[in-house]
């Protein structure tokens, strides 16, 4: 079974971003970039499938400019076998990315695609489900557990208020939630080894995908800041204040 994992290069989770003064976007120059945390969980899950003998090969894909090779190498160091960069300078929408990934799924005869449930920059939570739709695959979103049994993916999903278990026919698409696993750290020898693993580049044109945007961002604004609050010294003072506010 071949497993595809998609990874995205994003502004690191600990960076406090700033909106550009002309409201045209978010200033991401000179900030720390990382692999999207949910994508890292996806890589870990795929590597575990390989280690347990369920998967034969783990292929990691990223769509973006050459800088995303850094995240592909990270995934290779964590245990993916080879990498594909779909090279584009354009800032693509989830639908276009899903179309590109779908072409890779077709070409590589993928049985299982594992994606993060959302990226922490765009917060869209779309690409995985869109890929599943385009590929005609079953989908197990927000997974907190995954088992492959008798040609099916048995997925425990995080739903509002609890958990749902579904059986999915392969090929299938999984998106990862927080509790699916705890990603390992790449060891130094593995980081060195990752430099020699294959990484190929292809273009959206080669994949014959129309990536033209459907959405236009008119402006980006900073949300209104909350008014400065006050400190209270004791519990009784706090209770008093909350009673005055009418919330207790």
């Amino acid at each position: 079974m071949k497993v595809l994992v998609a990874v995205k290069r994003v502004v690191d989770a600990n960076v406090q971003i700033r909106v550009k003064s002309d409201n045209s976007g978010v200033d991401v120059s000179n900030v720390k970039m990382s692999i999207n945390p949910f994508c890292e969980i996806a890589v870990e899950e795929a590597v575990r499938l390989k280690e347990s003998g369920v998967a034969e090969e783990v292929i990691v894909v990223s769509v973006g400019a050459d800088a995303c090779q850094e995240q592909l190498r990270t995934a290779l160091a964590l245990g993916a076998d080879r990498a594909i960069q779909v090279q584009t300078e354009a800032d693509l929408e989830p639908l276009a990315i899903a179309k590109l990934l779908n072409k890779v799924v077709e070409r590589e005869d993928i049985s299982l695609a594992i994606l993060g449930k959302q990226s922490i920059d765009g917060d869209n939570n779309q690409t995985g489900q869109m890929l599943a739709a385009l590929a005609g695959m079953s989908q197990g979103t927000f997974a907190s557990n995954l088992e492959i049994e008798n040609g099916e993916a048995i997925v425990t999903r995080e739903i509002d208020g609890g958990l749902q278990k579904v059986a999915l026919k392969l090929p299938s698409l999984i998106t990862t939630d927080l509790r699916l696993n705890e990603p390992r750290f790449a060891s130094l020898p593995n980081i060195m080894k990752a430099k020699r693993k294959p990484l190929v580049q292809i273009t959206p044109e080669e994949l014959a995908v129309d990536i033209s945007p459907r959405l236009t961002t008119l402006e980006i604004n900073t949300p209104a800041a909350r008014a400065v609050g006050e400190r209270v010294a004791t519990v009784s003072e706090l209770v008093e204040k909350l009673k005055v506010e009418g919330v207790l």
Partner: protein
Amino acid sequence: MTILVIAEHNNQALAQATANTLTAAQDLASKTNSEVVLLVAGQACQSVVEEAASTQGVAKVLVADCAALKQQLAENVAPLVVDLVKQENITHVLLSSTAAGKNIAPRVAALLDVAQISDLIEVIDADTFVRPIYAGNALATIKSSDGVKVLTVRSTAFEAVEFSAGDATIQSLPEAAEQGLSRFISEEVVASDRPELTSAKVIISGGRGMKNGDNFVLLEKVADKIGAAVGASRAAVDAGFVSNDMQVGQTGKIVAPDLYIAVGISGAIQHLAGMKDSKIIVAINTDEEAPIFNVADYGLQADLFDVLPEFEAAL
């Protein structure tokens, strides 16, 4: 023109989030001179249909009642919605930004070959919407050039309609096809007497400062006195103190209660993203420098293990 809202329900009652999504739909309808149609897809969901039909502002309720839709699996619901959009004059499809809505919406959008706009917080006009990005640290105004718009609606940004005072017509749809891709096995929904996080008026949440899961009892005791829901930060979930469905934050639940009490929560960007629209925020933390104090209306710098019992006794 028609705005289609996909109702979220458990075959017995409408989910509260649908009430908020309907307000967004009605706002959009008034700006585009459209009518709002509500789709109820399920099995043996007659009580939901009745509730839907009596909801103010809903012109028509479409009912798809068959075995393939019992669990509302995305693989079976999405083609049904796509067929509806193609047959009727539907310009917008709205779902709630809940686990269920987020699961289905992108599958619908991709099958329609249109972009999706997630987490709508404001309707500007028929094509233009505002949504948060980067954990709510920026708000993007986005215009869509697609003929059909698929949107998910952030519940906290819209008031809830009452499921009453309406008189919609009801129309049955033909049976939906079983796509044979996925099968429901089981569901574990945590039964609780406390209110749901996303609709609670008061929430008390714990973070890493709670030290372990057992100490959440201290929060629960306070919660039970004031009818609050109990939440947690991602740090508390990551540390294994409590389950992920209690997580408030960028990748958990987005809440905006009248009162939010953050206990032992430092206030990472990811947590603030989930609660900073609350009306009154209280922070209880030993660390004077904790960022949570920057968004708090009332900050109490003290040891939560002293404060919580005292707070409970004072209520």
